[in-house]
């Protein structure tokens, strides 16, 4: 039974989304909730069995590698599945409040969201280089239409820009896949490391294409320009998923490729370059986040910055850095989902999210503002929170490898994050006399406030769950145990 779980974790939501498309508005919200529940349970069972029994492999079609496509769930995949399905389940609950009514657009939302959920699971369990290309396309082409759910008029330009970059990035990646196949004669992630390392210029070209393609899709500076508009204008539930999970899935792929198939071919200069790009992303994203006038854009630029931390793994490349980078992915995923859901509640209640015109939200939106503050603690990297653990691990790695300058980046990044988070909170709590804000919307339903708060609490709880999650993750691949 356990070897079927990866398949079910992909196809319960995928088939669920397809059937949602068939049944249309009448099936909302019962069918999507059933599928969401089943997906979460199935994925958690999968994570549980990896915890107990170790890696799971499923050869699709019964064909052996390199002929068939393997599904593999190791520690890294299991941690990402855990993040994806816990956040996914909570976002589904939130969306029950936001998109739970019958209607054509809501029906499309649920179909696309379930498809996206399944696509992300597919990406995390895939063990085949070309299949990962298809999974990347699945993720992008369900994510981009989801942005449009907020109404085409204000999102169409952002979606178009997103599509350009997503399409170009995946074609660059595909070029890498083609060259890899030429050199290695296989697409199985476990079989290509050796041939790539001996592949000469073609091997290096293949590696460069794979990495750059994924960087474009992950919206890493300077390929970030599509991200703020898309993440900032999408509906709250979608913004949460895009920022917490979608770009994260590309970062996951980068870690996976770097440490396994490309392990023999990576050069130190490239690793240092990735670190420098990460530092640039942290600096640029944080400063931009501080300068934004709209709440959701602050949170979106914060994503640009936070993705940079995961890149700091590459120049350090020790076990502590590995744990720190992955833990940062998890902590940021949970915290960023909380921030976007809380921002969505503000937007629903006030009718806009212009920072200067927000004040005195601590009363009517106490739960959401509290959720924002809790998640903010994790984003800033203050104890006790998941973000603190992640940054502590990265800091230790910087000192361990003697590369103190990354420690400096981490500390400055933390101050910058504190600046933009406190700026938001200052406006939200401000009770100073001024033009009273016009309230246009309803108080968000309890479900929407509580899911945001739950994610906020989770981002703090992650400060205490280090041992089980890092135990599940396992050590840096290839390093001596």
């Amino acid at each position, binding site marked *: 039974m356990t070897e079927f779980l990866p398949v079910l974790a992909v196809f319960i939501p995928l088939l669920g989304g397809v059937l949602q498309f068939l049944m249309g508005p009448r099936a909302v919200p019962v069918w999507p909730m059933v599928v969401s529940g089943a997906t979460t349970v199935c994925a958690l069972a999968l994570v549980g069995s990896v915890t107990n029994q170790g890696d799971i492999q499923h050869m699709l079609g019964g064909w052996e590698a390199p002929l068939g496509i393997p599904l593999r769930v190791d520690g890294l995949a299991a941690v990402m599945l855990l993040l994806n399905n816990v956040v996914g389940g909570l976002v589904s609950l939130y969306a029950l409040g936001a998109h739970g009514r019958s209607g054509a657009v809501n029906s499309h939302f649920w179909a696309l969201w379930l498809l996206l959920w399944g696509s992300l699971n597919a990406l995390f369990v895939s063990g085949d280089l070309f299949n990962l290309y298809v999974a990347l396309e699945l993720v992008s082409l369900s994510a981009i239409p989801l942005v449009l759910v907020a109404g085409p008029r204000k999102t169409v330009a952002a979606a178009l820009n997103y599509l*350009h970059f997503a399409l170009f990035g995946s074609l660059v990646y595909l070029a890498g896949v083609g060259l890899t196949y030429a050199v290695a004669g296989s697409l199985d992630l476990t079989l290509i490391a050796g041939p790539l390392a001996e592949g000469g210029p073609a091997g290096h070209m293949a590696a460069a294409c794979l990495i750059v393609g994924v960087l474009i899709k992950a919206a890493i500076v300077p390929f970030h320009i599509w991200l703020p508009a898309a993440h900032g204008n999408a509906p709250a539930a979608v913004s949460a998923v895009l920022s917490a999970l979608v770009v994260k899935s590309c970062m996951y792929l980068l870690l996976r490729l770097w440490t396994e198939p490309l392990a023999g071919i990576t050069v130190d200069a490239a690793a240092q370059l990735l670190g420098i790009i990460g530092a640039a992303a942290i600096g640029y994203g944080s400063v931009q986040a501080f300068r934004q006038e709209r709440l959701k854009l602050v949170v979106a630029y914060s994503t640009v910055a936070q993705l940079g931390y995961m890149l700091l793994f590459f120049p350090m490349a020790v076990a502590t850095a590995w744990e720190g980078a992955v833990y940062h992915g998890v902590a940021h995923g949970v915290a960023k989902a909380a921030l976007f859901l809380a921002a969505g509640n503000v937007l629903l209640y006030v009718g806009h999210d212009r920072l200067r015109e927000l004040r005195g939200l601590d009363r009517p939106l106490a739960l959401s503002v509290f959720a924002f503050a809790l998640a903010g603690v994790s984003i800033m990297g203050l104890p006790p929170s998941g973000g603190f653990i992640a940054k502590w691990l990265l800091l230790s790695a910087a000192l361990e490898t003697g590369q103190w300058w990354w420690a400096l980046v981490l500390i400055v990044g933390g101050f910058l994050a504190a600046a933009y988070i406190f700026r938001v909170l200052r406006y939200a709590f401000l009770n100073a006399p001024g033009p009273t804000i016009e309230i246009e919307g309803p108080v968000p339903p309890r479900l929407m406030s509580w899911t945001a708060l739950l994610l906020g609490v989770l981002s703090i709880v992650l400060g205490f769950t280090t041992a089980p999650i890092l135990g599940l993750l396992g050590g840096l691949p290839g390093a001596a145990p």
Partner: protein
Amino acid sequence: MSIMPEPFALAAAALIAVGFYGFITQQHPLRRLLAINIFGNGVFMTLILVAYWLPGDADPVPHAMVLTGIVIAVSATAFGLALIRRRILDANRKQDHGDD
């Protein structure tokens, strides 16, 4: 593999280079989509060459990859064209009704 220039390998490299150039320099969204597709065609050509280099029959695996790639590229481009049309329709409506 010979050191003799292979015309189609050069064509693949040219498609990739020109597609990249167009992606950077073109401002019109439709032109940019065309450039991306040209880049993609270069990648497909590369894959077909890899299949062609297998001694004996052509390698079916890269061929299957290209077929998948073409369908994905075309459906994504079709979606992109729908986005472009929507944008123009909205722009027109704004002009007709003044600012909204």
